[in-house]
């Protein structure tokens, strides 16, 4: 039996209100400005989404001040955030950091995040897959963190860093560090709508929230749930690219005809439509599997990342190509989606990483 892959009335209302807000408050020109050094959009948008709409603590249990919503709701949110490329720390803080903190039973931090007073970033490089994770920071005997963690997303404007580190005996710990106690160096990133930073710790005070196997489980929970739900963001990106491309095919004329009437063009649009619809089903299935705590959630996540990552990239590439010259300009927003789609393809493990995970799960190893 396959879980319900359609949306409920409540879920439709959530996406409609979010879409309306983002259409008004997150125009692509403001996202574009982030590439030229103006990140003011990020600071304006998050209070409206995180606090006013309550998305900061969407997945935080009610007993810790959150909405206690399920992965299905988070998937709905991410699809809309992907569609508008909203530069907000929902995936990094409200999904991934919350998943790790919940696994570590760090009630106080969950309450802070749910209240919207601060966001938290899991301090691992973007591009970390659950199978490739290795800590690079260390924790000394005095409880201070040292070392460098490169290319971390979601640090800008955050209050807390959730840092995986090796303790003096070589064991894994997960420790909270005040972002102000680390040196954060912003990086010119392929995707400036989710900018990266290098983090340097030179004896930063830290509070250990969990250690050993439990710390490894918490990181694993964050990376796996993140991967499962990133697929919905990728669907949102792909849907924008498809809608925008089809819109253009219906207005652009060459050789006296709408270019959408040429089979060489319309067949590519048809293939893209099929890919996007399939990706949506796969992403919803992965979200439902996590919401239901289904045993199939690991296979579902690997399939979702292996499939949806490539669909988002393909959709963005087709969007650029089928727009022709205008699609290659700085002015047209297609490139913003191309950059996010490509960064997302690597963000939590490449499609190849996820196929390798899948091979082990379905008894099809080399």
């Amino acid at each position, binding site marked *: 039996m396959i879980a319900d892959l359609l949306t409920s009335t409540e879920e439709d209302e959530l996406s409609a209100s979010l879409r309306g807000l983002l259409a008004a408050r997150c125009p692509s020109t403001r996202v574009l400005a982030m590439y030229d050094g103006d990140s003011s959009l990020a600071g304006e948008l998050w209070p409206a989404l995180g606090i006013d709409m309550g998305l900061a603590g969407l997945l935080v249990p009610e007993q810790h001040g959150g909405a206690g919503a399920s992965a299905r709701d988070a998937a709905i949110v991410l699809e809309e955030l992907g569609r508008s490329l909203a530069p907000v720390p929902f995936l990094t803080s409200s999904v991934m950091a919350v998943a790790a903190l919940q696994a570590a039973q760090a009630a106080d931090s969950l309450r802070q995040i749910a209240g919207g007073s601060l966001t938290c970033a899991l301090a691992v490089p973007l591009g970390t897959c659950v199978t490739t994770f290795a800590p690079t920071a260390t924790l000394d005997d005095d409880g201070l963190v040292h070392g460098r963690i490169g290319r971390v997303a979601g640090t800008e404007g955050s209050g807390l860093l959730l840092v995986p580190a090796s303790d003096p005996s070589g064991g894994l710990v997960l420790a909270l560090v005040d972002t102000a106690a680390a040196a954060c160096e912003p990086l010119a990133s392929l995707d400036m709508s989710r900018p990266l930073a290098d983090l340097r710790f030179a004896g930063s005070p830290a509070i250990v929230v969990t250690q050993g196997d439990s710390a490894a489980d918490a990181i694993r929970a964050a990376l796996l749930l993140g991967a499962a739900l990133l697929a919905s963001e990728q669907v949102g990106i792909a849907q924008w690219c498809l809608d925008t491309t089809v819109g253009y*095919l219906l207005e652009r004329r060459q050789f006296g005809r709408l270019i959408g009437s040429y089979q060489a063009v319309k067949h590519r649009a*048809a*293939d893209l439509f099929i890919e996007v619809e399939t990706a949506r089903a796969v992403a919803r299935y992965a979200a439902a599997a996590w919401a239901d705590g289904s045993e199939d959630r690991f296979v579902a996540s690997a399939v979702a990342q292996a499939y949806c990552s490539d669909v988002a990239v393909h959709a963005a590439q087709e969007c650029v190509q089928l727009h022709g010259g205008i699609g290659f300009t700085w002015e047209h927003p297609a490139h913003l989606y191309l950059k996010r789609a490509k960064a997302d393809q690597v963000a939590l493990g490449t499609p190849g990483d996820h*196929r390798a995970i899948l091979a082990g799960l379905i008894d099809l190893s*080399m």
Partner: protein
Amino acid sequence: MRDPDDITKRLIEMLSRFLLEHDPALTDRVTFLRARFAAGLAEVHYPLGDGGLGLPRGYQTIVEGAFEQAGAPNNAPELNVIGLGMAAPTIIAYGTPEQRARFLPGLWTGEDIWCQLFSEPGAGSDLAGLSTRAVPEGDEWVVTGQKVWTSVAHVARWGILLARTDPDVPKHQGLSFFICDMTAPGVEVRPLRQLTGDSEFNEVFFTQARIPDSDRLGDVGSGWDVARATLMNERMAIGGNVPPRESGMVGAVARTWREHPERHRPDLHERLLRLWVDAEAARIASARLQQKLAAGQPGPEGSAGKLVFARLAQELSSLEVELLGDEGLLYDQWSPSGNDAFDFTGRGAAFRYLRARGNSIEGGTSEVLRNVVAERVLRLPPEDRPDTTVAWKDLPK
């Protein structure tokens, strides 16, 4: 009979009464099936008096369940796919009361196998351009021409035939739809051998074959509308249950991988995993499509599923031949085998590889299906069509 619980209750009463009066263990198979049709328990969504009760299709599962539990014989629907899936709904929609009474009982019980006489050597994707002529003579039509890709024609008693009755009007307006007696003089069926060596299909030649006007379905000149309804039923018939993970072609390749560790190579592994993911994604997408249909959100997206199925079948079977190496180079048999109840995943890998090439041609080529998705779903404009306003006889051929 509006309340669903009431309908279910009365249906169950009807079924028990019927089974009391017709003990499956003591009744001859055909007699039993004829009685079932007469009682309106053939297909509950057929009209009252035509083998059904005019109920929503969903109630049929209750009927099938009751008959299966009673050990009753069924009408072997797999042997009359075109009859049940395409001819019957068309006869119900367009047939006169006389036509419905004459053709439906034998069709449903499986006593009469039906075939479909649509495609021609000169009219594949462009079906409306077909040139088989039906010329009126008294109260008969005289038919001359050639049809192709006609499965089960060699065992069929009846066929549904699309023929040109007026060449002087644009092509869509000059067609009429007939029920054709496959045993009539002037109707000749010849097996058509395919590149697999098999002959699943036939060619049908018409030489002055005579069809009574009373066997015409729908008005003269409205054959295209009738045929479109038939083809719509073909698309609706696809679907049903969501298959389990790793069923069909992907299951065959996965088993081969597990059984042949000595043949494992990195490139084959990469392709296998990609296709496994694509097959699983397609399976979940078809589940979502069926949930949409069940929720009353139908759409022409069914064409998309067929496109994906064809590509996966081709790539998976191609991979399997390579995976098997020298063993994949063997072919089970080149001599034509029977063509009843065909199974795409049966036989050897090399056969599957060859047969799958047809998946993107039969029942609408992948190119035409992409047009359907682009024009009906995405609402992109059609290509310029010089052929829709000119009289058929004046089109370049």
